[in-house]
């Protein structure tokens, strides 16, 4: 194993063992060894987080692991950030997503899983939590220049707030600036079509697939 390979492996391992300190150390070593930060992120950290995501999918790891893995990645990226141009940092981002559970709905477990799986797949995700107002989705999307707004709802009695989101974007004349995707227990493909959003995902794996397609378009 070359020195570079070893450092990339350490970055990946640190994420897989949820060890933020080890991730920071490996990131520092990577900077010292003059490894391209983009490479360190993509072939080290992100690779590790994808393994965590796959293991979650297989039922070997749990939601807290996804969160801890992402934390280790973020801690290391902070170190690398200082050593790369903004454009390079941007190039490691597959797309920016604002995600939340709609107003009146406090179910947030599905949301957390989807957010974590998106992160594990290279998206930059801003999670605005549950019981999120329509206007908060939009404000956050403007602020972070999001590509996608993703909304979750777990109740038939909160699904209508998804429709509001689309209408509010239309009213503001910015509907075409964002792709919108929806999901959650009672949400169906038909509902997604009926309210005119761009994507629907039955589960987190599908959410990732749909998000990848939406940023391609």
């Amino acid at each position, binding site marked *: 194993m070359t020195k570079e390979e070893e450092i990339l492996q350490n970055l990946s391992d640190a994420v897989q063992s949820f060890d933020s300190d080890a991730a920071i150390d490996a990131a520092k070593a990577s900077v010292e060894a003059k490894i391209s930060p983009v490479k360190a992120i993509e072939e080290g950290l992100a690779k590790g987080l994808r393994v965590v995501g796959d293991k*979650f*999918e297989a039922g070997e790891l*749990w939601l807290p692991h996804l969160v*801890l893995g992402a934390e280790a990645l973020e801690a290391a990226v902070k170190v690398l950030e200082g050593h790369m141009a903004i454009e390079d940092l941007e190039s490691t981002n597959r797309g920016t997503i604002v995600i939340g559970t709609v*107003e*009146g709905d*406090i179910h947030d477990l599905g949301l957390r899983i989807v957010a974590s799986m998106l992160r594990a797949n290279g998206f930059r995700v801003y999670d605005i939590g549950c019981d999120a107002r329509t206007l908060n989705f939009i404000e956050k999307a403007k602020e972070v220049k999001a590509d996608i707004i993703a909304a979750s709802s777990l109740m038939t009695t909160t699904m209508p*707030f998804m429709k509001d989101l689309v209408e509010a974007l239309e009213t503001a004349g910015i509907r075409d600036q964002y792709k919108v995707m929806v999901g959650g227990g*009672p949400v169906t493909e038909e509902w997604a079509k009926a309210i005119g959003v761009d994507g629907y995902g039955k589960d987190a794996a599908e959410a990732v697939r749909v998000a990848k397609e939406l940023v391609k378009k």
Partner: protein
Amino acid sequence: MAAPSLWEVLDRACNTGPVMATKDFDMKIFSVATRLTKEYDIKYDPKTPVTIDDSLADDAWNAGLQLFTEVGAYCMNSSRVIKFDESEIKQGLKELRGEAIIGEGSERRILKLRKVEDNSPPSIVCGGVIESNFPEGENFVKLYQSIAQEPLIDGFYVGPPLQSSEGRLVRSGTPLETHLGRSMVSWVREAIRRAGRPGLHFISACTSAIANIAAADPNEGLRRSDGIVSTIMPELKTDYENLNKIVYSHDYGCIKHVYNGGMIGGWAGGPEGALIVSIANAIMAVIVYQMSVGASYHALGYLRASTPNYSAFVTRPCLWGSSIGSQALSRNTKIINTAVAMTNAGPGTEMQFQEIVAAICASIPCGREGLSQGARRFKVVPLLGSGLENRFWGEVGHAMSKVKRDFANSLAEEMLQKFEHRITRESDGGPLGHTLDEIYDLKTLQPRKRFLDVYEGVKKELEDLGLEF
């Protein structure tokens, strides 16, 4: 020393508890739960859906108690941790009366503690239809009439709010829901009156506190012998909406029916962590909510990225958790604990009946006091629910109070083998089932032959397997 009063608990929740970020609280649960499952050597065993191991139940209890003592509860609105010291928790558990009285007049029922493998019948069969998505009006009355006319039903759950009120779309937490909360309760009173059981207990389960509170009225509305549902949010969390439901129930004097349970794959980790955090959640229901009746789902749902059973209750790991959790609470506390299980399959199907049997295997012989509904968990169509599956809960619940755990274990295994493979992603977990107007002749309000045949068929199979009705 007395246990902390509700006012003292609220003071900690709203004013004095230490402030902490939600994420830090969640991660603390994870690290403490992970440590405790190791310390107590609790391991998921897929081969034993219903355990007969008393010491495992006691270990789970001790781990759950320790988890609650170390971590406490969390209020989402104030971001405050509500902590108790060990002596306060012990005292709170000691003060439980081990009894709850529900219903009125000839429908008055006393819920009494049941031991593991207790021969006494379950005190309550609390049927009902959750996510029913029913239209308002006459069919809603018929639905609850079809449940109330079942003699084994001692009470039921009403909720969540319907999709419309006065013909207008209802969104959670809006004033239209407040009006609907009141309407639903008056329709239920009509349903139980028609069934000839005007004092029958029911619980209101609107989303917002105000919608439940608006329904309270000793005459025409929600009576003191009825109840309000509040939930412990997984894991170990509450919010002002739920605390408002609790405070109001406390002041009004009605039953506090608390739903609580742990999520497999959630903040406490896998099946083992979900089991012990579900016990901690039940303790929180006693100490923070000062509940009258608990409905604990112990291990609910399996959080995964793409398996079909990510939110199903009646799966192998959920039954494992439920059977141990039931025994842990029964052996160590005076909590009146009913079982909740949402099924993968919908009403009128063989699979839903099989799931109900499996859920009861992990609860009634394991010392739970009662049962509380089973409806398909999501992606429902309007009118999905009927009295028939409630009749089944009742009949099987009573029959299962006469069996031992080893029989329950083999029966649960039989059932799992019949339906486990049908929980697929494509079917959203199982067959959707049938609607009230399909299952019942709405004129006579009796189940149609076709569905009675399915019912009797499953019952016959159970008899062949050795269950006595």
